[in-house]
């Protein structure tokens, strides 16, 4: 049985948050600041993957073009900075809005298709956006757009410091995950899950399925855009790679690895995949081979993702909904 209610798991999430807050001073104390940068990257991808998990796991929409919104957010910040707008208070909301708008346009058309056609049409739209930005020579073309620095926040907060940036990212990701958790248990989230489970039936009891799916698609796109805002600040580079279909594929792998439809599926998937990449790439440039093997093992032994293993061990964690 599938529970409609998804616990935010405060007994796991709050200690994890405490550890993450304590992480930078510890790393500085042992003189390993590199890990702060890695942790920031993992947090950003956790957000991006969670936004895709909202689409796939809760809305039943397998999008293969999620990088479009991730990259749109990143490029919006980059392009505004080229034109002298470096305030986070203007550029970040503008980037989220641009991603949401792109999701609205792409979703409004794509959601008239289903299944494999939906996968293909979202992929096609994302590739169109990819080639659009590659062709914009004024904004770096193939090479991407190098930023003069990170966005300006003011109030004495300097994002140029990796530690400060880490805490800003952590605050945003934690807040967004909490909001996401609220949403899936609210009326919208339950209606969405009803549509995912059985669209004909959902319509027959009066749910406007298309409208809810489109709303979910736009929200997912907006959150991916926010993740794009953060990644472009982290890298100080808006690269067309952020828009490439392989980026969409990477986000998909994270969601599948962590657990489709689990609140923290995207988080765990991002953590595991990026740590694997980090460790394996130290030994071999063919690290993707190792990742492939591990992914294969997960698909064979835990087809519903790593979080399904935890669920199986503690049946009480499923909880009765209601």
């Amino acid at each position, binding site marked *: 049985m599938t529970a409609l209610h998804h616990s935010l798991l405060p007994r796991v999430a709050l200690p994890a948050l405490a550890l993450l807050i304590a992480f930078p001073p510890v790393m500085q104390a042992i003189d390993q600041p590199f890990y702060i940068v890695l942790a920031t990257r993992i947090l950003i991808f956790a957000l991006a993957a969670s936004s895709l998990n909202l689409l796939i796991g809760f809305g039943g929409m397998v999008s293969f073009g999620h990088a479009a919104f991730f990259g749109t957010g990143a490029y919006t910040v980059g392009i505004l900075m080229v034109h002298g707008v470096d305030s986070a208070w203007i550029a970040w909301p503008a980037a989220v809005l641009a991603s949401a708008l792109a999701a609205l346009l792409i979703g409004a058309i794509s959601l008239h298709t289903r299944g494999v056609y939906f996968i293909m049409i979202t992929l096609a739209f994302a590739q169109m956006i990819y080639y659009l930005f590659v062709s914009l020579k004024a904004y770096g073309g193939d090479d991407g757009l190098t930023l003069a620095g990170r966005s300006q926040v003011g109030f004495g907060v300097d994002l140029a410091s990796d530690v400060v940036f880490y805490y800003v990212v952590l605050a945003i990701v934690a807040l967004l995950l909490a909001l996401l958790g609220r949403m899936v248990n*609210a009326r919208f989230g339950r209606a969405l899950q009803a549509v995912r489970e059985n669209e004909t039936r959902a319509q027959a009891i*009066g749910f406007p399925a298309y409208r809810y799916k489109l709303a979910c698609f736009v929200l997912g796109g907006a959150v991916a855009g926010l993740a794009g805002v953060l990644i472009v600040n982290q890298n100080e580079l808006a690269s067309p790679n952020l828009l490439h279909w392989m980026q969409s594929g990477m986000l998909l792998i994270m969601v599948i690895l962590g657990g489709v439809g689990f609140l923290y599926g995207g988080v765990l998937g991002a953590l595991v995949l990026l740590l694997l990449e980090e460790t394996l790439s130290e030994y071999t440039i063919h690290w993707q081979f190792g990742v492939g093997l591990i992914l294969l093992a997960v698909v064979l032994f835990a087809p519903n993702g790593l979080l399904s293993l935890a669920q199986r061990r503690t049946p009480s964690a499923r909880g009765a909904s209601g």
Partner: protein
Amino acid sequence: MAEAVLALRGLTKRFGGLTATDGVTLDIAPGELHALIGPNGAGKTTLIHQISGALPPDEGSVAFGGREITRLAVHERVAAGLVRSFQVTNIFQRFSVLDNMALAVQAGSGSSMAFWRPVARETALFREAGELLARIGLADKAASAAAELAHGEQRQLEVGLALATRPKLLLLDEPLAGMGPEESERMVQLIAALARSCTILLVEHDMQAVFRLATRISVLVSGRIIASGAPDDVRRDTEVRRAYLGDEAPSALA
């Protein structure tokens, strides 16, 4: 006759060369339990689809409560009070029986564009879902997954989901399909009870049940209504007898 709840005017639907419904005109009065019968392939399901909004008619119109609804989407018709159940059981299989019902109650109580308040805290919603489960005789199954219910119970839940949206007119598409005698009896009782609170259009093959329940019967043959009236009149209608001769359940008409 009081003003019709549902008024069909010349509903025609063609699939290539086949005319599935051919100018169907029919009025359903408030409070009726109107049965629609007819041999296999008569166009009953196609007609139900056009009434519920799943299929657009090629010609003709549908009015509900005096309002033209021919072009409304399924969910808009449900909001207006025109709700169907399915011939093939169509429930949220992986969710609990209570969650199934709670979703239907939620769908029938305003917009679900609410992003903050947990539904789990909406006690009124779950109380109503519980009451509905009691009404359809599934109160003791609330915590089971819908997929684990027996066939008859799933059919009860199917009808219950439609009921939860507070319909003015309930379209029941073969609610007795595939049921054993005991399950059938329970369902007939349930339909009789529902008929007290809403108008029902019942499509059914079980003639015994139809003649027990219906206050009016219409007969659809080859996409046309060939007779419509009180059960006794329909039973005696020569054209109906001819259409059913050699087809299912002629004995029920005798």
